[in-house]
């Protein structure tokens, strides 16, 4: 694995790497990966916090706590609540915010998103969205309003499996979702986060497809800053939808392999992961960590009054301040500010 070219690795090789039960191989991957990460990113880790705006959803995705068949209280933050939530998060010093919604263009239309982004600009310097897929024109509007990044995961590239778990709603359209990163990039938005939900299908095959998708995006839109996420499926309300469990060893191998193949790509790690995994993954290839996360709508300032079901349970409950201190102890510079808003203009 001393070649950076994705074309030099094939599916069989990925399978072999993930399936070989050899501590030496894992160690070798980790050493290469940590060296590359140190070279390209130095000892810095960017921190961000997710903020849920709404849990209304018109899609039925069997693994998601927000799906429209789940009987949960639906809620959408009001203008006042958006201010309250953001003020609360901003007090931690976080400057990068990820705004999330369920997949509902009815409950959270473009106008609502634009309003939320407009408010976020008062509190944060870097604004990203994880929302239902839009058309290029809509992304362009959001970009002009100050959106810097969009997160959109294909979840799985196995089309049969995709149909089985995305039963209805807009998200059941595999092809439309697949083309979403291209529509985002065409709008001028500077950061795109892509990913797969680990546990839905054969991990090696999904990983291989994701690498190809990223490789294609890099060719088409070389100016975009890409990052990848590998969320592992978690239980929601007692259900376990993972058909295969991705253990910690495989998970770490995925991070390392990704870093070796894509030296400059960002790798995100959310609070779905345990403190133990997060703390150890730090030096191995991860470049961006979420911190102080709450995955419920209104979870930062409004929740104490009205309890909401989270999208998924978080494993790492440490505060932003605790993460900052931890990073310093581990000799990493926590990066809170990683972008200055400049007026985004279409060129």
């Amino acid at each position: 694995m001393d070649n950076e070219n994705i074309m030099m690795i094939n599916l069989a090789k990925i399978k072999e790497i993930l399936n070989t039960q050899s501590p030496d191989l894992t160690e070798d991957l980790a050493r290469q990966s940590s060296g590359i990460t140190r070279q390209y990113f130095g000892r810095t880790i960017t921190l961000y916090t997710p903020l849920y705006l709404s849990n209304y959803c018109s899609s039925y995705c069997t693994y998601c706590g927000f799906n429209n068949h789940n009987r949960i209280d639906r809620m959408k933050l009001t203008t006042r609540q958006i201010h309250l939530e953001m003020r609360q998060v901003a007090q931690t010093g976080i400057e990068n915010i990820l705004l999330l919604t369920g997949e509902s263009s009815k409950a959270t239309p473009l106008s609502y998103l634009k309003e939320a982004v407009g408010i976020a600009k008062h509190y944060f310097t870097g604004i990203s969205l994880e929302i239902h897929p839009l058309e290029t024109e809509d992304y362009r509007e959001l970009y002009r309003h100050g959106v810097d990044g969009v997160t959109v995961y294909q979840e799985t590239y196995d089309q049969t499996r995709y149909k089985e778990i995305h039963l209805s709603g807009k998200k059941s359209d595999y092809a439309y979702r697949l083309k979403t990163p291209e529509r985002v990039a065409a709008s001028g938005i500077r950061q795109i986060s892509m990913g797969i939900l680990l546990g839905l299908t054969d991990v090696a095959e999904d990983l291989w497809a994701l690498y190809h998708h990223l490789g294609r995006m890099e060719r088409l839109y070389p100016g975009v800053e890409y990052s990848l996420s590998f969320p592992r499926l978690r239980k929601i309300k007692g259900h376990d939808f993972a058909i295969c469990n991705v253990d910690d060893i495989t998970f770490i191998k995925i991070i390392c392999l990704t870093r070796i193949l894509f030296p400059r790509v960002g790798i995100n790690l959310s609070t779905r992961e345990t403190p133990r995994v997060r703390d150890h993954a730090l030096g191995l290839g991860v470049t961006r960590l979420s911190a102080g996360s709450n995955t419920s709508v209104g979870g930062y300032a409004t929740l104490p009054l009205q309890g909401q079901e989270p999208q998924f349970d978080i494993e790492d409950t440490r505060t932003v301040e605790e993460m900052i201190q931890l990073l310093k102890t581990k000799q990493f510079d926590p990066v809170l500010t990683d972008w200055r808003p400049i007026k985004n203009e279409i060129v």
Partner: protein
Amino acid sequence: MKTTELYISERTEDTPLVIAGKVFTSRFLLGTGKFKSKSILEETIAASNAEIVTVALRRIDLERHEENILEYIPKRVTLLVNTSGARNAKEAIRIARLARESGCGNWIKIEIMNDSKYLLPDNNETLKATEALVKEGFIVLPYMFPDLYTARELIKAGAATVMPLGSLIGSNQGLKAKAFIKILIDEIDAPIIVDAGIGTPSQAAEAMEMGADAVLANTAIATAGDPPLLAKAFAMAIHAGRLGYLSTMPEIHDTADASSPLTGFLYEKS
């Protein structure tokens, strides 16, 4: 520290580095990205004796939520804000204006990249940004791919220097672009600062020996086990390379050069 100062002060024949009328005794520019802590950065700046330090505006916390990087940069140093993150001239211009409005001065390193894989500078956009920012009164130091035509246009547009890359940024590959940087050194009447890809003190010395006016380094130092020590080594190497250049070193030959003439016997009086 003392050793570096000694090396630097012993040379008196050298003319100082002058950029936009400002005189610098150090020919080492230090970048501030990728350091594990702000305090290590502070120590490294001190050890480097650098008089020009680059900072990415995107990383400056103007709202003062965190440790502000600017507080770790001594006042004696000229702050050179870079436009990291800019993908085109318009974005670079906005970043430069924001830097000036935020009190970061008017020295700007234009850094425009529209390729997240190789991070190569876009010379066309860099030229456009240079033209615009010079008109707005900025002191412009453009980071560029070593192309003679672009370098000429940049200087014509009013750039204070040109900063050609040695090799891919952060790669530590050294002077992959040596032959083309040499052309700039020979042909451009402005300071040539070799930027990007310089991974070792010897590579920095090599750039200086061939006549570069200064060297900028960041990644290699920031990611070293002992950044202040490596910064000191770079400072000494850059100075050593400069002295070598000034000495008009003899050329390097591929074959042995006999010190006695081979045909002398023909002219000997028997």
